[in-house]
């Protein structure tokens, strides 16, 4: 049979089995690590997918009305229209307290659900009675709840009229009550239902939706519809179905007819009608026009004043040529003020944009006309249905949401109310009214139709209003979930990165093993060469051989990879939980990661082989021989001061210049490292001069052979220590205003929004913060639009993180926080100032943490994040700055004004950055915790908030260190076995030593001493240079893991000693004697 190269390679492989097994073992480890890492990435994705799918249950699509509510019957109507199964629910936030032990869980989700919700998910749970709730296991575990226990729930109640809307009555829509737990439901039973994208298990309460209503509505409201979609409908198809079934009543709009004018008008249960709806309706129904009726605080003229009257801004009924500063007043008002045409009266009102700040504005108007009793628009129905006003029997019983001076109300005012209710006393042009009272909630209090009756109008509107204008959006949960688990943190690549040292060790060992292997076969290869095999053919033979070895190793590694995956996943669920914030990961298997790891390992092995072979064959064909080389001329003792003195100088400077100490010390450490290597080289090169050490001559002839393992050891130790010293801890810098805490003392967050401005006297008085001890306390307050946490604590991909609306001027004035990146070519140098700008319609600026931008959102400064504003309009948020690591991690910051414009229904502030007297921080914390208990407040020092984000990074560093140590140990062990092979090739030398009178024991002792010296040089070089590099971090309080560091040095030294001991003991006397005899 002809000798084919493959056959020759197979025969060679079986002959050199021991060497091949060693190489295969290295490839096995290499493959196992890559395969284990990739399988871990797959396991995390599978677990995350399972987690997200369990949370969304049977829901494939989500119809959300955002911050608004709709008629819950819409879900049934949708099913009727589309045959898609649907269930409505109300999602709101709040807090939950165990009535028995007082334990409280903040940031819980409360779902108002009917029995249809459980049926939708295929669960055998009937609907909930009023006063009873179901909680999920996670919440029950957190605050020790059992079936039958009572809980106190605080929540944002369902009321279509936001409490911060102009003239909304009383306090915000904070609801609370005591409820009895009728059951605890497991995750598998839908207990972990969530519409968010996060691996964390939610705290859920399921409640009868009627218990969430705070306005006594006639029909059930909801803000979400879950849709099961077996036919793969698109979002736009579902939106079309929704449009077809949507009637005004579903979104809180109603049409009534004015008894006085006979006109039909559209009004909203939100009082103000959103601009998008006004536009839509006026487009759909020709001859319709918006109307704005507002409450004036007073009409004043010549010392006479009429208090608390309504005034309407009309477009249709007003003369065409009415000026903006002209007003038509009723004869009643003219009489009361003794005013007539041409007179100027002053009008005052509470600014609608001021929220609860009660800023009063005013304007002067020239009376154009006094309207007689026959004036068509002396119409009581023009007054909006203000909940605290319209049902009142007297003016003095109004609850207008603003403080009214009841002393000013006269008997004639009460009589007017009794006779005419809210009939406006004055009229201005709509244009002027819009200018004065147009607000974020809308530009109209009604839309009047000049033609058409009630039914015709409703018919025209039904099926023609685009759902998006009412805030509806349709999300494909399947797509969103897929994005969340597939575009989230890639743990596969992460663990490959964290296992860098192990992989590097494997590559280095494989390279060295191959070199030894090829060197030991030099004779064979010379034979091939001499009998006419060309380089390509020799290379092919060796590649076949190493390929077979690599494949065998890779197959074994692929099997072991699953074990590595199992270990990593279990570690992530327990000791490394800081990296994933969940213990629900499960190991999973897939062919693709295994095949990828297999291919990668084989390719790496082949690349190493090719590189090695290239040099080997080049040397061989050029006839070069292994010769010892004298040290280069420049490498002498004289060079050492040139390296060590600057290193010491840099270290000295690092002690003097604290601001640059890290960079200086690191440079000093690197120079020390660079200096110790030639020192070691010269030390080994000089060993031949010492008498009586025959073994030392070897390394004096080949000092590079000693330096290579020294570099490996030293570089490994250096890198592991440097990495360990990078553990993130709170430093003094972070407490400064320019640091990550912004100089704030506390970070507080409430489950329910707080409507008052806590910096105002009224706000402080409301919560008892006016006491002397709290005189220095100040707040930076932020409104919050819920979203999925985009901080490093969430491993799922998040496209739209929670938005905070803050006052950027306060932050900019304080000089709080620092930017890592900012928008180029921006006119303003400070990104904070951009938050008040509106570059275009529906375009605003935003700021986020740079790490969140880069890793979480995968965006950069200048990119745009797409949001949908409350009224369904697309909102483009252009990132104008990336903050250095800050307490805002996970959030997107926009200006307060922009927030209120685009999300007006958010009723107050939920995030508070607290500053004041640092010594009083504990008192602040206790006081706020106490005073805002009803809002579900959590207060923590700002530095602790910042530090909570470090847990992820620090866990990764810990993993990297552990993997690094494992890699080092593996490398040291591998070097030891390499030494075995080296001793094997030096048998002749040892045999001659025996012949010269050395005993085997002495040879072993000398070899052990030489190699321990190499080990010590490596450990010393790495430790000393790393210690020098990291001393500023250590001195600055870096929580370097000393235990792990000492364990590393101990394990490396111990492993090194054991493998050296084993290696030198492999030198066998009989073997050497027989070799001597043979020679």
């Amino acid at each position, binding site marked *: 049979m002809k*000798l084919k190269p493959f056959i020759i390679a197979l*025969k060679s492989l079986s002959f050199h089995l021991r060497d091949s097994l060693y190489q295969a073992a290295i490839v096995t480890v290499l493959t196992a690590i890559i395969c284990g890492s990739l399988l871990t990435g797959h396991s995390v994705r599978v677990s995350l997918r399972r987690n997200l799918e369990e949370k969304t249950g049977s829901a494939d699509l989500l119809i959300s009305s955002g911050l608004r509510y709709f008629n819950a019957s819409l879900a049934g109507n949708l099913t009727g229209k589309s045959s898609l199964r649907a269930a409505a629910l109300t999602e709101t936030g709040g807090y939950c307290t165990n009535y028995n032990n007082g334990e409280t869980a903040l940031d819980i989700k409360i779902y108002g659900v009917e029995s249809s919700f459980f049926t939708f998910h295929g669960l055998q749970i009937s609907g909930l009675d009023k006063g009873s709730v179901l909680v999920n296991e996670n919440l029950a575990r957190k605050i020790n709840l059992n079936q039958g226990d009572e809980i106190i729930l605080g929540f944002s109640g369902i009321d279509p009229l936001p409490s911060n809307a102009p003239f909304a009555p009383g306090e915000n829509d904070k609801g609370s009550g005591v409820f009895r737990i009728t059951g605890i439901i497991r995750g598998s039973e839908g207990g972990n239902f969530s519409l968010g994208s996060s691996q964390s298990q939610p705290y859920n309460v399921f409640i009868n939706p009627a218990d969430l209503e705070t306005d006594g509505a006639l029909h059930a409201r909801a803000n979400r519809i879950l849709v099961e979609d077996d036919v793969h409908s698109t979002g736009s198809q579902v939106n079309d179905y929704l449009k077809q079934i949507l009637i005004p009543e579903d979104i809180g709009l109603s049409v009534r007819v004015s008894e006085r004018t006979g006109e039909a008008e559209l009004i909203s249960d939100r009082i103000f009608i959103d601009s998008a709806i006004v536009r839509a309706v006026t487009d759909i129904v020709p001859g319709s026009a918006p109307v704005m009726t507002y409450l004036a605080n007073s009409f004043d003229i010549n010392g006479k004043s009429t208090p608390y009257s309504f005034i309407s801004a009309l477009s249709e009924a007003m003369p065409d040529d009415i000026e903006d500063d002209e007003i038509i007043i009723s004869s009643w008002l003219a009489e009361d003020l003794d005013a007539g045409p041409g007179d100027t009266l002053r009008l005052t009102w509470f600014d609608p944009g001021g929220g609860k700040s009660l800023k009063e504005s005013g304007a002067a108007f020239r009376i154009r006309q006094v309207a007689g009793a026959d004036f068509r628009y002396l119409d009581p129905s023009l007054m909006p249905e203000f909940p605290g006003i319209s049902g009142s029997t007297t003016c003095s019983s109004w609850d207008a949401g603003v403080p009214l001076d009841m002393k000013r109300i006269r008997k004639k005012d009460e009589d007017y109310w009794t006779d005419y209710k809210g009939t406006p006393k004055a009229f201005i042009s709509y244009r002027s009214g819009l200018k004065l009272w147009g607000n974020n909630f809308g530009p109209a209090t009604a839309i009047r139709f000049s033609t058409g009756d009630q039914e015709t109008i409703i018919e025209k509107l039904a099926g023609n209003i685009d759902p998006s204008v009412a805030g509806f959006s349709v999300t494909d949960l399947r797509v969103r979930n897929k994005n969340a688990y597939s575009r989230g943190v890639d743990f596969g690549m992460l663990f490959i990165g964290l296992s860098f040292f192990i992989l590097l060790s494997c590559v280095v060992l494989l390279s060295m093993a191959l070199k030894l292997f090829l060197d030991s076969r030099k004779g064979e290869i010379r034979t091939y060469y001499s009998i*006419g095999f060309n380089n390509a053919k020799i290379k092919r033979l060796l590649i076949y051989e190493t390929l077979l070895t690599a494949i065998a190793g890779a197959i074994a590694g692929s099997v072991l990879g699953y074990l590595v995956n199992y270990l990593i996943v279990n570690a992530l669920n327990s000791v490394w939980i800081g990296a994933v914030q969940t213990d629900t990961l499960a190991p999973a298997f897939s062919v693709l990661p295994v095949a990828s790891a297999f291919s990668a390992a084989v390719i790496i092995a082949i690349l190493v082989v090719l590189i090695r072979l290239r040099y080997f064959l080049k040397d061989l064909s050029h006839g070069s021989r292994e010769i010892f080389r004298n040290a280069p001329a420049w490498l002498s003792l004289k060079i050492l001061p040139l390296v060590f003195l600057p290193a010491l100088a840099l270290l000295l400077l690092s002690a003097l210049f604290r601001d640059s100490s890290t960079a200086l010390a690191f440079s000093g450490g690197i120079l020390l490292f660079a200096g110790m290597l030639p020192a070691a080289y010269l030390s080994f090169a000089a060993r031949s001069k010492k008498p009586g050490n025959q073994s030392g001559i070897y390394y004096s002839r080949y000092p590079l052979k000693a330096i290579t393992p020294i570099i490996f050891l030293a570089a490994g130790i250096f890198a592991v220590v440097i990495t360990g010293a990078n553990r993130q801890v709170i430093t003094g810098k972070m407490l400064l205003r320019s640091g990550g805490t912004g100089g704030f003392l506390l970070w507080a967050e409430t489950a329910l929004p707080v409507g008052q401005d806590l910096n105002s006297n009224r706000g402080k008085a409301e919560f008892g913060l006016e006491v002397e001890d709290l005189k220095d306390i100040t707040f930076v307050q932020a409104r919050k639009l819920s979203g999925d946490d985009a901080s490093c604590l969430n491993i799922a991909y998040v496209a739209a993180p929670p938005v905070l609306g803050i006052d950027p001027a306060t932050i900019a004035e304080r000089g709080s926080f620092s930017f890592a990146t900012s928008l180029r070519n921006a006119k303003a140098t400070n990104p904070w100032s951009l938050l008040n700008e509106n570059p275009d319609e529906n375009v605003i600026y935003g700021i986020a943490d740079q790490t969140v931008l880069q890793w979480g959102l995968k965006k950069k400064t200048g990119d745009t994040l797409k949001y949908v504003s409350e009224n369904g309009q697309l909102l483009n948020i252009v990132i104008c700055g990336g903050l250095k690591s800050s307490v805002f991690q996970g959030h997107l910051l926009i200006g307060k004004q922009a927030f209120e414009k685009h999300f007006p229904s958010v009723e107050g502030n939920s995030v508070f950055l607290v500053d004041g007297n640092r010594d009083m921080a504990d008192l602040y914390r206790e006081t706020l915790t106490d005073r805002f208990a009803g809002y579900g407040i959590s207060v923590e020092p700002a530095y602790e908030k910042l530090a909570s984000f470090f847990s992820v990074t620090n866990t990764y560093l810990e993993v990297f260190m552990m993997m690094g140590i494992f890699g080092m140990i593996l490398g040291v062990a591998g070097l030891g076995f390499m030494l075995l092979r080296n001793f094997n090739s030096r048998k002749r030398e040892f045999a001659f030593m025996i012949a010269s009178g050395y005993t085997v024991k002495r040879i072993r002792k000398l070899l052990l001493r030489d190699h321990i010296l190499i080990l010590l040089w490596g450990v010393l070089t790495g430790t000393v240079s790393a210690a020098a590099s990291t001393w500023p971090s250590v001195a600055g309080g870096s929580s370097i893991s000393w235990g792990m560091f000492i364990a590393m040095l101990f394990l490396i030294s111990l492993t090194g000693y054991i493998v050296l001991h084993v290696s030198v003991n492999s030198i066998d006397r009989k073997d050497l004697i027989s070799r001597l005899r043979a020679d």
Partner: protein
Amino acid sequence: MLRLENITKSYPQRGMVLSELNLMMGEGDSIAITGPSGSGKTTLMNIIGALDRPDSGDVLFRDSSILQMSPDESARYRNRNIGFVFQDHLLLPHLTVSENILLPASAFNITTEEYHEKMSYAGMLMEKTGISDLRDKYPYNISGGEAQRVTLVRALINKPSMLLADEPTGSLDSRNAGILGSLLAEINNELGISLIVVTHSGSLASKMRVRYTLEEGRLIR
């Protein structure tokens, strides 16, 4: 057939090894080269066999410079024209004796017919050198003298024009050295293969028609 012109070769550690060396060799000639250790004998053999390159000068084989050859042409030159016999037999330990012998036939693609021809030629040579019964043995199962004869057969399998033997009897006892020396001379005489032998052995050198001593980098007759 072979002409070496002004060959010079030096090594950094050893200095000048060959200096302006010239050599002429005709078809079927046999040359013995002797000289002290380190005088450059092996270097000279490696240069002739295209295993090494001189610093200057030229090596002409049948009037073509082997120094101008590409690596592949060089390999083909060794495979087709040169047979090497080293002091250490350098047999591949994982191949049997017959596989080792036929290995040069696998260096380039040949037809099955050619391969069978080489197999029968190998059988004849093995018969002639007295190693027929070693055919299926591995190199570690045969003696040094037998291994050296296997090497000789392997060197002859492609019917080379020239045999380069570097200390072929250096590691053999006198009996085996005698057998191998006779075989080399016989092959030179019977097969007409040119032979260059580097040796310390006066007995082996005496079997060659021309004898040179390599001194100070030059060949002295």
